[in-house]
């Protein structure tokens, strides 16, 4: 019987220490596989999907209408014009929308722990974080970044930007780094739910709340708050600081110009901290001590 067992089986997969790059690639692939499954699962309720998508577009559209209505009573806000505000709105909402699309589901961590879904993820050969981020992935979350991109494009046509090569380059860098910073905020604060189930509200105030703050010029806020977004939770690097360069505006804090180019660094730091928080949380959950 033992001989037969050997014949009918594949050999044991080897335990190999994979390189960090291979592990990241595997995490992305796992996310992709799960997200594709969720997309098809949600498409099996097509009517519901279409209705939710429409509702999403209408709600997000009304969001910017509020800003437009405000400008019927004033020409500038904190010294910034409507197209400039459109630029802030578009970049902030686009970064948040993309981050939410890719990793937003991580905020349901507490619920996944309570229902035991996290345990099921942990017995699969894929990173739990990737599976969690892809959970309930839905293309209807594209509604928000699509609307944000539209507002951003409109603002770029309405603005009179003096396009130098560094400003042209800064625009895509801003969108990518802004998305990464919001993704880090999602993951970092969601990790608190390993210890404290109610932490979701804190995370919401920094992601959705933070994105709303970033839609207005830094000049309308207290300097302490703006400083907090530079040196604390690095939300200022999402759009405020690079926008100062692109729109050629003075920095209310008077920081060195280097800060306006530092979004990639801020994104890398934020992701590193979020990654450590996640690992510490998972270790605590599994009871690995430390």
């Amino acid at each position, binding site marked *: 019987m033992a001989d037969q067992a050997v014949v009918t089986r594949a050999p044991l*997969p080897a335990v190999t220490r994979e390189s960090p790059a291979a592990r990241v690639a595997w995490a992305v692939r796992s996310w992709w596989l799960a997200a594709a*499954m969720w997309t098809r699962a949600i498409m099996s309720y097509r009517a519901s999907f279409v209705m939710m998508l429409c509702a999403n577009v209408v709600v997000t559209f009304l969001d910017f209408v509020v800003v437009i209505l405000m400008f019927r009573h004033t020409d500038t806000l904190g010294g910034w014009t409507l197209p400039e505000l459109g630029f802030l709105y578009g970049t902030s909402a686009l970064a948040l929308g993309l981050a939410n699309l890719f990793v937003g589901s991580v905020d349901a961590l507490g619920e996944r722990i309570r229902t035991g879904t996290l345990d099921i993820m942990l017995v699969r050969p894929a990173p739990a974080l990737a599976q969690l981020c892809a959970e309930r992935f839905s293309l209807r979350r594209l509604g928000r970044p699509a609307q944000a991109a539209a507002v951003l494009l409109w603002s770029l046509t309405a603005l009179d930007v003096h396009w130098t090569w560094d400003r042209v380059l800064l625009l895509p860098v801003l969108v990518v780094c802004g998305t990464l910073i919001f993704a880090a905020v999602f993951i970092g604060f969601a990790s608190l739910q390993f210890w404290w189930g109610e932490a979701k509200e804190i995370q919401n105030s920094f992601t959705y709340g933070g994105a709303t703050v970033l839609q207005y010029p830094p000049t309308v806020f207290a300097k302490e708050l703006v400083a907090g977004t530079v040196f604390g939770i690095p939300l200022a690097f999402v759009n405020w600081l690079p926008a100062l360069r692109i729109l050629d505006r003075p920095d209310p804090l008077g920081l060195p110009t280097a800060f306006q180019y530092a979004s990639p660094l801020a994104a890398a730091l934020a992701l590193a901290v979020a990654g450590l928080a996640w690992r510490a949380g998972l270790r605590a959950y599994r009871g690995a001590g430390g």
Partner: protein
Amino acid sequence: MALIELDDVRRTFTVRAKAGRLRREKREVRAVDGLTFTVEAGECVGYIGPNGAGKSTTIKMLTGILVPTAGRLRVAGVDPARERVALARRIGVVFGQRTTLWWDLPLRDSYELARRLYRIPDHRYRANLDRCVELLDLGALLDTPVRQLSLGQRMRGDLAAALLHDPRVLYLDEPTIGLDVVSKAKVRDFLREVNRDLGTTVLLTTHDLTDIEQLCDRVMVIDHGRVVHDGGLEALHAAGDSERTLVVDLAGSHPPIEVPGARVVRVEGPRQWLAFPSQESAAPVVAAVAARYPLVDLSVREPAIEDVIARMYAEVAIG
């Protein structure tokens, strides 16, 4: 080859309980308290115990979900705490109460995902899927969304999903819970084949002791985080001091009869129940009854394993 090895494995949880209005007291709970055992390749082991005995904590450590507080643990050659992903490729897990299948998608899609996630070579995937489809009678269900399957069909689907990647060890947590008699029988038949023909090591927790009687050649009873019995079913009966029952129908109503080596435990008209130790043969008792009383009919009842285990728990609690 030992596929599962535990050496003095412990797992404690810190519980914070309210003590007074604001004060909170930390208390250590020992869920698993020094487990040492090995399971050889190809064994089918029943792992049973009352609720809160430490069963699911053990399973969670063996599947890499939880890390032991102390002790050494190896499954299929890897340390579950350190090599969670490598372990996942070597084990199959079925939770009776939770499905790992995709609710809104056809059964086949869940298997396709497993093929990619477990990186199953094409020929192995096809061979394993074909075998599972045949043995579990899944052919007609492959294109049905999982939400439309009955509980029994879904459990069969879950079993197949857990075996596509040739796991060395299969953990089953209450695999027959909530199933009807026919579905239970199908699941048990399949598990027997997997264990015998493929040599897959099976560790099974259940409250349905028929599962154990029909599948397992070894039973481990755990209580308060410790193994209180480890051996065959017969040994469990002996350890539990169990008794068999001889039911006799006499020609007419009788006062409790007197037979050496047995005692009457119940009388109902012409029918009487006699208990005798299960290690003893029934033959001398039957002969004694037939010699002295007008015997019309008889039957022998094996002790219910529930009773044996209940008695064992009671002893542990007293001891």
